[in-house]
């Protein structure tokens, strides 16, 4: 298959591109929409909003989730907020400023046209969600309240206590539920995508596995949307939910969809540090806490006094010292590296010396405990439940953890992958955040893609297909994919080795974290690329899955997901090795300034790396999409 990466960026100035696109896009008449079937995989913000909107328009929509209900998707766990260029605070915000902040935050590695569109539709998202009844925080006068997030000098973040993701997801879920109730959407719960089927160069449908009885079934459609989230669980320990996985995107990749920038992963600075080797996941503490919390470590590595007894003069407020103009609200990648360096230098705090303090004592003195409780009460409670310490009395201990993945399926301006008819939305695609995502922008992107982009762009693809037959599930390509999927899952059961999928997941995660985590080197990546294939071979020979493939079997589900993480992990390391520069979340120790900041190489690497599957993840082919910056000038990112 020859790969062409045509980004299909519309003509015109950056301000006009989206309008120009919409004016030129082909339309499907209302009465004809019901003749088209669209499959949406995933029911998070992007999936639920896309499915609900397309069903409202009149398309037949089938939605698939591996959860027991669409309301469980991991978008629900986002805490802090959602950005929008409303300028309700009158503090100088605008579409252009949100666009610029996002491009700069992403270290100039995102596609300008997509990001500008994101900033444009951000304002519609807030209007839409309020109309649906999302109870955003309000001021006493009844107007919407805002707060600040990292990488911005304006207050443009809308929030609903510390549960913004929950409220937005439930809003989108309720719109989806309405369409299910009306019979416009067929919902398939506890059903996992196991393959993507392409026929004559276009995406013809998917193959799924019913997690309750193991049944493998094909579904054909005119178009398929992957809204299947990110791959942060490749690290094993991450803030992602336990079931988050790369399988759907990876299966699409194996069928020809290029995978872009897999090495761009975000390590979130404020998570609760690991306390125990049996730990299964890490918990995020919202970035919003950095509005009022101050990050510090003791000057003296041998400090033994409790935090409150360390005098001011013996504290190092690392972010305020290094980045005075943004202070504690420096972007995530930068803040994470600052924390890592403090811990690496032996100044970590806590029993395992594996964290830094996030201290609220100044805020409590300045604002009073009540105000702090009003703003962050539920986060403080969550911290106390997990860490067993009361953050009103002693500072939180935090450390970076894998949180979000900017890389994903390559998509063009229409959010279509290089396989016609196959789309990717939300965290599953690569398009908007470059090499680093700003806080409160993931919710914005998921909803932008689902509510305001896909419903337009999919029509443009479907219109010419009106009244033309599409292959049904009796086509040999579907049968072949079903048999391959059945064989794959039966194969895991038949290995009958000695180690569980979790054992291998921990091991693969450790290698990726050590060599392809917050700091990467050529030597380390080469080491990972020699260790991973050996471990993968062991996985294929020594995996143990008890039970069978014909009933509810969570060990078997895990085995399939770990298999795909292995392959993705190898590609991540390849991508990190070939990108000989530092940018955003991708920090190569060989490429840094004298002050230890990321050093980009715009001459050689101002492009997207989109990888083509060849059958061996260590031998994938690297394609390039050059990034052309017309509206803004490439600059060195500085938050000093």
């Amino acid at each position: 298959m020859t790969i062409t990466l045509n980004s299909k960026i519309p003509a015109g100035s950056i301000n006009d591109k989206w309008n120009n696109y919409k004016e030129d896009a082909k339309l499907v008449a209302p009465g004809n929409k019901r003749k088209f079937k669209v499959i949406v995989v995933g029911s998070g913000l992007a999936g639920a909003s896309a499915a609900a909107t397309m069903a409202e328009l009149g398309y037949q929509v089938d939605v698939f989730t591996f959860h027991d209900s669409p309301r469980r998707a991991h978008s629900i766990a986002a805490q802090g907020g959602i950005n929008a260029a409303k300028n309700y605070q009158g503090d100088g915000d605008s579409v252009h400023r949100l666009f610029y902040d996002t491009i700069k935050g992403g270290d100039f590695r995102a596609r300008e046209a997509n990001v500008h569109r994101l900033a444009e539709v951000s304002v519609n998202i807030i209007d839409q969600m309020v109309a649906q009844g999302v109870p955003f925080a309000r001021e006493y006068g009844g107007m919407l309240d805002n707060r600040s997030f990292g990488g911005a000098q304006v207050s443009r973040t809308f929030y609903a206590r510390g549960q913004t993701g929950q409220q937005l997801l439930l809003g989108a879920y309720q719109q989806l539920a309405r369409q299910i109730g009306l019979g416009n959407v067929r919902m398939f719960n506890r059903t996992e995508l196991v393959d993507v089927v392409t026929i004559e160069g276009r995406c013809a449908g998917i193959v799924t596995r019913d997690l309750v009885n193991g049944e493998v079934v094909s579904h054909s459609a005119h178009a398929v949307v992957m809204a299947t989230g990110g791959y942060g669980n490749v690290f094993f320990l991450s803030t992602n939910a336990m079931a988050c996985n790369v399988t759907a995107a990876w299966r699409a990749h194996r069928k020809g969809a290029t995978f872009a920038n897999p090495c761009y992963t975000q390590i979130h600075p404020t998570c609760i540090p690991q306390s125990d080797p049996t730990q299964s996941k890490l918990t995020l503490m919202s970035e919003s806490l950095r509005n009022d919390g101050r990050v510090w470590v003791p000057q003296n590595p041998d400090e033994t006094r409790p935090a409150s007894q360390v005098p001011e003069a013996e504290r190092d407020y690392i972010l305020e010292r290094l980045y005075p103009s943004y202070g504690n609200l420096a972007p995530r990648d930068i803040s994470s590296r600052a924390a890592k360096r403090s811990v690496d230098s032996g100044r970590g705090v806590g029993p395992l010396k594996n964290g830094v303090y996030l201290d609220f004592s100044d805020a409590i003195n300045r604002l009073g405990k009540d105000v702090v409780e009003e703003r962050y009460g539920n986060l403080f409670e969550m911290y106390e439940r997990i860490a067993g310490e009361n953050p009103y009395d002693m500072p939180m201990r935090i450390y970076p953890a894998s949180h979000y993945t900017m890389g994903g399926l390559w998509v063009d301006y229409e959010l279509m992958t290089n396989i016609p008819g196959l789309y990717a939305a939300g965290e599953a695609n690569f398009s908007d955040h470059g090499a680093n995502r700003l806080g409160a922008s993931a919710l914005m992107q998921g909803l932008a893609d689902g509510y305001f982009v896909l419903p337009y762009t999919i029509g443009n693809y479907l219109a010419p297909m009106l009244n033309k037959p599409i292959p049904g599930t009796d086509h040999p390509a579907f049968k072949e994919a079903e048999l391959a999927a059945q064989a794959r899952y039966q194969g895991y059961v038949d290995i009958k080795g000695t180690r569980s999928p979790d054992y291998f997941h921990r091991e693969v995660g450790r290698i990726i974290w050590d060599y392809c985590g917050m700091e990467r080197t050529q030597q380390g990546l080469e080491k990972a690329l020699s260790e991973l294939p050996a471990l993968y071979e062991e996985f294929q020979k020594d995996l143990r899955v008890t039970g069978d493939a014909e009933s509810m079997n969570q060990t078997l589900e895990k085995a399939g997901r770990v298999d795909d993480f292995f392959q993705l992990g190898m590609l991540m390391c390849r991508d990190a090795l070939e990108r000989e520069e530092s940018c955003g979340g991708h920090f190569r120790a060989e490429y840094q300034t004298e002050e230890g900041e990321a050093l980009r190489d715009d001459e050689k690497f101002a492009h997207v790396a989109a990888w083509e599957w060849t059958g061996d993840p260590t031998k994938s082919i690297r394609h390039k999409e050059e990034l052309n910056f017309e509206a803004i000038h490439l600059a060195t990112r500085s938050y000093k």
Partner: protein
Amino acid sequence: MSNHLKNLKLKIWRQSGPTEKGHFEEYVMPEISDEASFLEMLDVLNEGLIGENKLPVVFDHDCREGICGTCSLMINGQAHGPERSTATCQLHMRKFKSGDEIVIEPWRAAAFPIIKDLMVDRSAFDRIIESGGFISANTGGAPDANLIPIPKSVADAAMDSAECIGCGACVAACPNGAANLFTAAKISHLNLLPQGQAERYKRTEAMVETMDEYFGSCTNHGECEAACPKEISIDVIALMNKDYRKSKLKNRKEISRS
């Protein structure tokens, strides 16, 4: 530093399918860190079972941050275990002590059939939301978000109800297997807001009647409020009942007008 609990005796409900007969099985957990979460303790148990070539215990879980509502479990007869306002996934072993016997069961309610072991089917909750738990606002054309000011007290009260995570603890804790707290939380979230007024009575009638198709009746035990990991107050049930009564008049009156 962490301490370790020793010799926990676990009695866990095992059931191979919806129609199979279930039973308690006993396991001993020789040692576990008190820093481990309750579900991490079960992960350790399951790793051990796989090591012995046995079937691990099936249980629902996902975010492990207390927000997705996927986890469940009756722990020593209490929905989500002994800690107030805490979902099972946020419960930590420091709440237990060495030698404790811990009985672990699935949610037990007629409307939540068991799928396997500790996993149940809660899709009846989705049916309630599908019947009216939304504001009909098609995408596009929404007015500016600040057009309708909402007093902070109203927004806060709506948010208090909207915090429901849909876990089903209220149903599991209720002696009647009623879903009144779940249903009323959604009704109160939407009925309190100005945007929710247009469908207020239609919504209430539809949701209450769908709820009654699947779930038992409320007799004001208040067990639901005590079990709720989000501490949703049973006051919302009073609001639902009031709006349901009114709906019978309002909806009739509107029908006669049409």
